[in-house]
């Protein structure tokens, strides 16, 4: 992990936002107030599917303290979506005009002098609905005669995805053993500690500023401009400190849109903070999926063919769910070299809260199903689970046919490390089992369905007379630590100290356009842009330094630790700070400005780089009750060069909390489209006492496409835990759980069933 050739990278440093965060001085959108600020609230549909016949807001408007009420009539009547390149997938009005499609769909919003008045006004809005038959399960929604949720969408199929290579049908004929298995993946809430919120301020000069808790201030800017009929440049979106995202905050949301509309009506700042209940019921969530897998192998464990069919519960709208549908199909082939592979996925509209991106982006579902099935195949063939993965696993420079080109890949080293760990545990106590799962994940998406004309990532570096470096990036630090990682990359590339860099991020008014933070983009894509900007600035400094140092053609100049020097005689040089002064004077007093950008070209269909890992989960099950404890989680992980080791540890442990919860307890049960547990009290997740011991075994790799060899490090870690847990439960007590989450109750029932079968067999 440590690397002496770097001065900043790989060092254990304090997060650049740390002092603000441990003193309570970090300001979140949730904390902002402005003079004259109004408070907004949103009225939402109580019906899963209904026509809106009439909305009467007159009583609400008359309530003292109410300053504005908006409904769909106050909008331009447009539909928006993040897949802008495909108009049919832009299907969400946000403020519904004629029809609501889930319990929680917004129908009106109010701005008032305080929250209580706004709340009271909501009760005075009279909405006349005509309830329509509704459908909640995607398997029902595709049937003939099912209620149609969007006009003209046959069988409620929102989008389908097909991926294929090789000849799957022929290959199955050559297999010695074929398995067909069915799994179901449940929903999961992002449960960001800060709920969705925004303060919008439209001013008399017809400009709009929005402070919001988001993962992509650029997306919000662009989508708002379209929905409000404004120029992008007249909208400034600023992301203050943000209390988590996890995939749930990069689409335009009701807080942002409604606060902007209300502010346009009043020219006052309008703040909307979603309640925790709204957060659970009316924001997007992890996509539930029905998974059918067919896997064929030779006797020796060579995997010849895999066929995957998936139906996902789309909920009412598309959002990023279309991407999740594609990625779950792609990652279902991971991390194995299938010569023949076929995926067919269908995303189906239902009258439930829309589903979309969540950390892992379709891959945790693929791993839950796929990694259990691999274990089942190994079990059938009498092969060690690690061995079957080793035999078929991705290797460096492997091409996923027609899809992706893998450069660095440390999967096999990860398998070796996990094998060592499993062996070191020796014979396990009774009812204790270790399960493993292998995974790979992307370092940012190559796809451009948003249709951005800009580079995917961009950065600007500005150096002032005292040598201080201002770094401007469109990356959004939502807690994952991109402000720190990018500052480290900037400092390393420029040759200065971390404390010489001050980062300014996620403000469309001052930062270059950038797609923001999602899909594990930041370290590789933003990192490359930052590195390029820093190197551009460095080159300008070295041109000036060369005048003084007069390097021979064979000599080269560089900067490290604020020392501008000859690379082959590092002791000879001059101070960086002196060079900065000379350079600014030499450039007519202009700041030194470095520019950088990154857009992947010709890197396959998915991502420019992939990280890999193998995780082992150890559980002990009480065979009488099904109750189990997560004893420990050991992860062998490679993410190229480690830029920020403290950040990686945090990402890993945090992923285990979230993905362990996905496997163990997190769920959003529904009754007729109504989420039954919309409170933190009822939404069970892993707390400190439930958290297992965690250990990281870091594997060294170097990714040629990444900045200083770095690649994705945090999101992929959400993928393996549930699948490994499923395997661990099987290894502990011999029952297989097919439906997420694998609650103790499900384990108990499976044990009962197993006992009954054994009894039957004895007879």
């Amino acid at each position: 992990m440590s690397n002496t050739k770097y001065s900043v990278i790989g060092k254990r440093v304090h997060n650049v936002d740390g002092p603000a965060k441990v003193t309570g001085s970090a300001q979140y959108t949730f904390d902002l107030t402005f003079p004259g600020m109004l408070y907004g609230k949103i009225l939402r549909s109580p019906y899963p599917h209904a026509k809106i016949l009439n909305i009467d807001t007159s009583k609400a408007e008359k309530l003292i303290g109410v300053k504005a009420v908006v409904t769909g009539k106050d909008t331009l009547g447009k539909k928006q979506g993040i897949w802008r390149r495909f108009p049919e997938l832009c299907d969400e009005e946000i403020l519904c005009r004629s029809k609501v499609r889930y319990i929680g769909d917004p129908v009106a919003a109010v701005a008032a002098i305080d929250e209580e008045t706004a709340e009271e006004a909501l009760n005075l809005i009279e909405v006349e609905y005509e309830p329509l038959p509704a459908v909640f399960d995607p398997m029902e929604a595709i049937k003939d005669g099912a209620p149609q949720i969007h006009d003209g969408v046959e069988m409620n199929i929102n989008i389908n995805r097909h991926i294929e290579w090789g000849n799957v049908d022929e290959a199955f004929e050559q297999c010695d053993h074929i398995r067909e298995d069915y799994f179901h993946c449940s929903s999961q809430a992002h449960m960001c500690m800060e709920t969705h919120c925004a303060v919008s301020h439209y001013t008399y000069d017809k400009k709009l500023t929005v402070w919001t808790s988001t993962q992509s201030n650029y997306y919000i800017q662009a989508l708002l401009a379209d929905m409000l009929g404004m120029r992008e440049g007249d909208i400034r979106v600023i992301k203050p400190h943000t209390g988590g995202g996890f995939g749930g905050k990069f689409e335009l949301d009701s807080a942002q849109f409604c606060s902007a509309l209300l502010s346009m009506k009043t020219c006052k700042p309008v703040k909307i903070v979603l309640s925790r209940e709204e957060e659970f019921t009316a924001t997007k969530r992890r996509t539930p999926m029905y998974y059918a897998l067919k896997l064929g192998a030779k006797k020796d464990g060579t995997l010849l063919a895999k066929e995957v069919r998936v139906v996902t519960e789309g909920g009412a709208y598309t959002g990023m769910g279309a991407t999740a549908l594609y990625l779950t199909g792609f990652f279902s082939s991971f991390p194995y070299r299938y010569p023949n592979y076929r995926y067919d996925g269908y995303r189906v509209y239902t009258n439930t809260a829309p589903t979309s991106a969540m950390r892992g982006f379709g891959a945790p579902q693929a791993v839950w199903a796929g990694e259990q099935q691999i274990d089942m195949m190994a079990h059938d063939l009498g092969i060690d689970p690690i061995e079957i993965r080793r035999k078929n696993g991705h290797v460096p420079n492997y091409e996923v046919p027609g899809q992706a080109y893998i450069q660095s890949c440390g999967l096999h080293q990860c398998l070796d490390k996990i094998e060592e760990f499993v062996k070191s545990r020796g014979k396990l106590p009774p009812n204790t089992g270790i399960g493993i799962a292998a995974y790979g994940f992307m370092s940012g998406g190559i796809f451009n369905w948003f249709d951005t004309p800009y580079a995917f990532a961009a950065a600007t570096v500005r150096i002032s007379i005292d040598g201080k470096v201002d770094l401007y990036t469109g990356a959004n630090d939502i807690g994952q630590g991109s402000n720190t990682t990018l500052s480290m990359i900037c400092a390393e590339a420029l040759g200065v100290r971390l404390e010489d860099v001050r980062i300014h991020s996620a403000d469309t008014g001052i930062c270059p356009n950038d797609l923001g933070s999602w899909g594990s983009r930041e370290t590789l894509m933003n990192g490359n842009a930052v590195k390029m900007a820093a190197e551009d600035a460095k080159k300008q400094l070295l041109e000036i330094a060369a005048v003084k140092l007069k390097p021979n053609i064979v000599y080269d100049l560089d900067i490290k630790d604020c020392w501008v020097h000859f690379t082959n005689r590092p002791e000879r040089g001059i101070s960086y700070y002196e060079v900065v002064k000379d350079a600014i004077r030499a450039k007519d007093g202009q700041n030194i400005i470095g520019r950088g950008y990154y857009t992947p070209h010709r890197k396959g269909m998915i991502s420019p780089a992939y990280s890999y890992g193998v995780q082992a989960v150890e559980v002990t099950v009480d065979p009488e009750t099904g109750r189990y404890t997560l004893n420990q989680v050991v992860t062998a992980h490679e993410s190229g060069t480690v830029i920020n080791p403290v950040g990686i540890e945090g990402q890993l442990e945090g992923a285990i909390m979230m993905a362990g919860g996905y496997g163990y307890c997190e769920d959003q049960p529904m009754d007729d489209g109504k989420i039954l547990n919309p409170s933190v009290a009822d939404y069970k997740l892993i707390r400190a006492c439930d958290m297992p011991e965690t250990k990281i075994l870091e594997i060294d790799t170097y990714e040629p496409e990444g900045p200083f060899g770095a690649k994705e490090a945090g999101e992929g870690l959400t993928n393996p835990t549930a699948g490994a847990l499923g395997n661990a439960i099987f290894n502990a007590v011999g029952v297989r759980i097919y439906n997420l989450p694998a609650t103790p109750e499900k384990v108990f029932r499976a044990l009962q069933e197993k006992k009954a079968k054994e009894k039957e067999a004895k007879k």
Partner: protein
Amino acid sequence: MKQRLTFTINGNPVEVYVEPKTLLVEVIRDKLGLTGTKRGCSDSSCGACTVIMNGYSVKSCSVLALQAEGAEIITVEGLAKGTKLSPIQRAFLDHGSYQCGFCTPGMLMSATALFLENPHPTKQEIKEGIDGNICRCTGYNSIVRALMDVSAGKYKEED
């Protein structure tokens, strides 16, 4: 009918007028402008609003403001002494025991209350001490490591 309420917060006496139903967290955030204290759920399940009241950690969303009459309240803003961070704050920095930082103030207050009661808690006691605080980012273990170091005396109060 608003009523008079007096208490001290981070050593400063305050006097405010509040409705009987007003919550302590509302006074702290909205009336006193101490926005370090967060709200994550409003049903005392997440711990983001944790403050110390008369030496014990309480969830300020489940305390009526008037119950704080005469109390001594400490919020996250009261942890540092001038420019000197508290041992727990420094341990959090060193161990990266926060990511988005939204739960951090509440987590720091639960931890501070734990150490007021028990200066050398065990690992299990630490876990129990922060079990009422949800952190969606860190997975808790870096927080536990930081607090273990504080418990072992690796971080002293700075003069």
